[in-house]
């Protein structure tokens, strides 16, 4: 019998939920300010997915770092890796099916899982200039399994239509992604309030589970478009005692995962 954790926080629940999506045969890379995915990758590797290959910072293959530090792209993070991946090479074999899993957050996410991290407002005269797409623009159109996470579930993040499509999700819904010859796409959206997936036909975002203390009404009110809401919405599966212990004591004892909540509120 697996012991369920009695008390845990939202950041821990998000890490555990994401970790459970990774499979032992996955190759996963992480980008900038990605404490939740990095913690999830390490947690998956320490529990159900020992064969998972992590490409730290998209640079250090199968790295074995110390506990998380205040930066997810720091050279000290890819200590003891088996290989350094020159960046330009990564983009030369990214089609081969390796690196098939990618985690993305963005300033705006729409009902079809398209993501914007480029500009808010009109491109030519932006209200807010964001840092840019980094690798998400390519990854979105490369048949990858995309996991979206955000620590700011608000109507400002979840918009009906993104101002700029930095990363292709299901485009205009239905079969519009498939028609361009693009496979896979967004699998799951994990936020500080809930977990969502995509309804298979329309490809619209659908509520899957809510975190403890969160109501369905609250999720809908914090989302800038109508979600598909099935009759039964379970609570998000809680972490186990083992997962919480690993996370708190081994993987992230300094609580770096919580920085995403701070930096998110400091945004703009």
């Amino acid at each position, binding site marked *: 019998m697996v012991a369920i954790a009695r008390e845990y926080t939202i950041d821990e629940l998000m890490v555990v939920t994401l970790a459970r999506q990774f499979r032992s045969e996955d190759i996963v890379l992480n980008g900038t300010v990605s404490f939740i995915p990095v913690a999830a990758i390490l947690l998956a590797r320490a529990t159900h997915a020992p064969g998972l290959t992590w490409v730290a910072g998209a*640079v250090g293959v199968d790295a074995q770092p110390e506990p998380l530090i205040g930066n997810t792209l720091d050279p000290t993070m890819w200590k003891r890796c088996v290989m350094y991946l020159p960046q330009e090479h990564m983009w030369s074999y990214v089609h081969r099916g390796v690196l098939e899993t990618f985690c993305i957050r963005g300033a705006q996410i729409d009902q079809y899982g398209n993501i914007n991290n480029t500009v808010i407002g009109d491109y030519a005269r932006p209200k807010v200039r964001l840092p840019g797409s980094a690798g998400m623009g390519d990854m979105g*159109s490369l048949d990858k399994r995309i996991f979206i996470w955000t620590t700011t579930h608000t109507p400002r993040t979840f918009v009906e239509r993104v101002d700029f499509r930095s990363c292709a999700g299901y485009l205009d819904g239905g079969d519009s992604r498939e028609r361009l010859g693009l496979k896979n796409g967004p699998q799951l959206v994990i936020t500080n309030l809930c977990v969502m997936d995509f309804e298979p036909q329309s490809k619209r975002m659908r509520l899957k589970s809510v975190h403890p203390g969160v109501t369905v009404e609250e999720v809908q009110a914090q989302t800038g478009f109508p979600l598909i809401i099935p009759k039964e919405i379970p609570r998000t599966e809680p972490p186990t005692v083992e997962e919480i212990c690993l996370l708190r004591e081994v993987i992230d004892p300094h609580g770096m995962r919580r920085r995403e909540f701070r930096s998110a509120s400091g945004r703009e």
Partner: protein
Amino acid sequence: MVLERKSLVIDERDAASWIRDGMTIAIGGFINSSHPMAIVRQIIRRGVKGLTVVGPASGGLDLDLLIGAGCVRKLVTAYMGGEHYCPVAPMFRAAVERGELEVWECDEGMYYCALRAAAQGLPFTPWKAGIGTSFPEINPDIKVFNDPITGEPLLAIPAIKPDIAIIYAAHADPYGNVQHIGTGFGDRALWRAADRTIVQVERIIPNEEVRKNPLATSLYGVDAIVRAPYGSHPFAAPGYYIEDAEHLREYVAAATTYAKYGDRGPFEAYLRKYVLEPETHADYLQVIGIKRLIALHEY
């Protein structure tokens, strides 16, 4: 009589004098690591204007400083942030929102396609990723075309050829053989694409040292070597030192005061203190101080 090979070693002032108004230059490294800052600061001191800067695929506060100092007309990079120090580079954000900076909008894979086309002497590289995104709609240089063989839609990413690439590495011999410590990020792609390359290093090593470990050689035949110990400061240098967090926070605070409140005072003070007033790289290091520098050990 024995003829000696010609040494390619110059100082950062000579190196910066290669950079002229309106050129396309590339700068290596990655966010908070491995930037040729001794040369970058000297470019600012010289008051170079109208540059097209091909940043690293993920640019950082090195480019932000160049933008804030008014050297840059156009920027080619896929990302401009400072990791946890700032989610978006402040002077970059301010310049774009004020309509003062042109961005060649691309994603990382597209960026490497543009460099690869230049390296191979081709007009463009075909690329599948980015289909379905807004990039081809807003970047007029990126064209959607149909593959003449299968008929499927692809993007044509045009070549971008830097006049000069400026790269930071750990070591080089005097003859232009360069050895990075660690990954080298995308520096090789910049070197392959550019007409000429200047490499700034921590240490110059004898040619015999290079020959002991040719596998470690990341670039050869570069055009000039600049020796500048602590030359990536305030950014990290794999194998030598970590980033100077306190200094980066000082920079971000100064730049953010302008980006958020329109007050250029603190940024100008930063520029004067750390860039304009120190005449050389050595003078800069003196301003930072030996205590701070030796505290930035890597392990």
